[in-house]
């Protein structure tokens, strides 16, 4: 124990490291604090403080356009979460049984949305939908979101699957269970924490996406981030901050939930 403490001491001898770390944490969080703080400003001019008020929240929550954008966002996020989790569960199981070449191809395909620059993915899917005459809007956004939610859904599911003791499958098979029964009664319950964690991550990734939605929105597919972008472009009021604060809150709560689920079950 004393030795461990000793190593810590000698590295604390880099005197600036602690200070820089505190400053970096401040750099990461202070901007978010400003977003939240100014959402309570009475003044129309965001950054000139005139007093505390909740009126912007009331303003934002009763706005019909914002309600419509919120409904679009939720529809997209819920459906693409379900789709991506189902596909990712299949992929996680399938990857285990693939030959090496197939596995590498599949893995490249799964991870591609994370590596391809988002702008290229956005205009690529736009070109695809226009080419095959698939109408732009909520459905188009949902399909594109599903594609880049798959890797986020897959990682926790795969981590879970790796920890599974395969003896349980053999035991079930010896006792006469068929593949479907084994999947439903053994694999699925074992994977459940991974699936829930993956679903939560997929949900916020979809909910927070701006760029892909922006290009695929068409006339009626405006999601919440696309609407916020329009607000920022037109006139910045504390309303933008109020809306942003709500979105931040949802993201942080969901990530924390996902984190708790993953770490508790390990």
């Amino acid at each position, binding site marked *: 124990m004393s030795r461990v403490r000793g190593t810590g001491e000698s590295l604390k001898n*880099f005197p600036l490291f602690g200070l820089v770390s505190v400053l970096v944490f401040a750099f990461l969080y202070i*901007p978010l604090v*400003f977003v939240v703080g100014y959402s309570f400003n009475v003044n129309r001019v965001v*950054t000139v403080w005139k007093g505390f008020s909740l009126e912007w929240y009331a303003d934002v929550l009763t706005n019909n356009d914002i309600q419509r954008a919120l409904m679009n966002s939720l529809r997209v996020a819920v459906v693409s979460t379900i789709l991506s989790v189902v596909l990712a569960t299949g992929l996680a199981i399938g990857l285990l049984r693939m030959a090496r070449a197939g596995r590498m191809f599949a893995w490249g395909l799964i991870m591609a949305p994370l590596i391809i620059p988002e702008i290229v993915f956005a205009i*690529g899917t*736009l070109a695809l939908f226009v080419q095959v005459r698939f109408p732009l809007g909520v459905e188009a956004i949902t399909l594109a979101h599903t594609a880049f939610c798959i890797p986020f859904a897959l990682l926790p599911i795969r981590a879970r699957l790796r920890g599974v003791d395969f003896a349980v499958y053999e035991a079930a098979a010896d006792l006469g269970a068929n593949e479907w029964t084994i999947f439903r009664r053994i694999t699925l319950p074992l994977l459940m924490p991974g699936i829930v964690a993956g679903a939560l991550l997929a949900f916020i990734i979809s909910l*927070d996406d701006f760029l892909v939605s922006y290009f695929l929105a068409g006339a009626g597919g405006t999601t919440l981030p696309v609407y916020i972008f329009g607000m920022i472009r037109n006139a910045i009021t504390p309303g933008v901050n109020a809306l942003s604060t709500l979105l931040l809150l949802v993201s942080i709560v969901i990530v924390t939930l996902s984190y708790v689920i993953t770490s508790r079950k390990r």
Partner: protein
Amino acid sequence: MASTQAPTETTGPVPTEVRRQRRSSGRAGQGSWWAGLPGLLFLMALVLAPLVIIVLYSFLNRAKLGVGVKWLFTVQPYVELFYSESLSGEKTFDPVYLQVLLNSALYSLVTALVCLVLSVPIALWIATRPPRWRTALVFLVTIPFWTSLLIRTYAWVIILNDNGPINGALTGLGLISEPLPMLYTPFATTVGLVYSFLPFMILPIYASAERFDFRLAEAAYDLGATRLTVLRRIVMPAIRPGVIAGMILVFIPALGSYLAPELLGGGKTSMIANVIAAQFGASRNWPFGAALSVMVLVITMLVLVAFAVVIRRSGRDGNRQQLESFL
């Protein structure tokens, strides 16, 4: 981990035919590769197909009204990268778009370097905290990544604008009389980019630092090395895999950034993503936008190939394994 491998290992040497049979039939109850088929087909339709279409579009003509393409082969979009054409049809060498591409690469490089300078101290600092603190601190680093990029970029619009808190504080202290113009400058874009991608640098460096045995640093101290020598000769080589991975994880998404230059750079500091977006929007030149996208993809791929080469050349096995684990 050991238990998953046990069944194959205990059976000892197995004839190839039997092994092959096992692979095709699968172990009892573990499902088969079929389970992955729907996902693969979906990704081929929504990830592979768009890429193919982009490459295809980059060799086609502009549609008359600008939306979509005319199916007639041409290399015109790539010519436009180098030459501009006057109304009379005269071509002059004008690498303005290559300049934007180069500028974007520069922005991304500067962003990656600034992130590196900020990340090494914090990654080492977190790695030297007690274990239960580490988990919490790493979680604190990840949270911003999971929040909306749009909102995180907007935060800097508030902070840097003329009436914002920084200018407010400086005026209040009497240091300046006129607001310092910070928003809509290259500085603002860079700050936004650094803010967007900083966690991508901290996390891999931390992952490397966490594996480092800090007793080695202590040994070096005991042998009379100075702090700087320990950092340079002992710690830096150990966290090199994390540094390389971090540079790539920051550089690639920064190169394709749209929001930071759009909201913080104003019109002045367009990056390549803004030019591409404009081709699919107001400028209505899809083939040219596609050609620019192909260029971005090529640069991305070159960076990844360079990464692969570094992995292969990485002498020490530990380093190599670590680099591969980041992929």
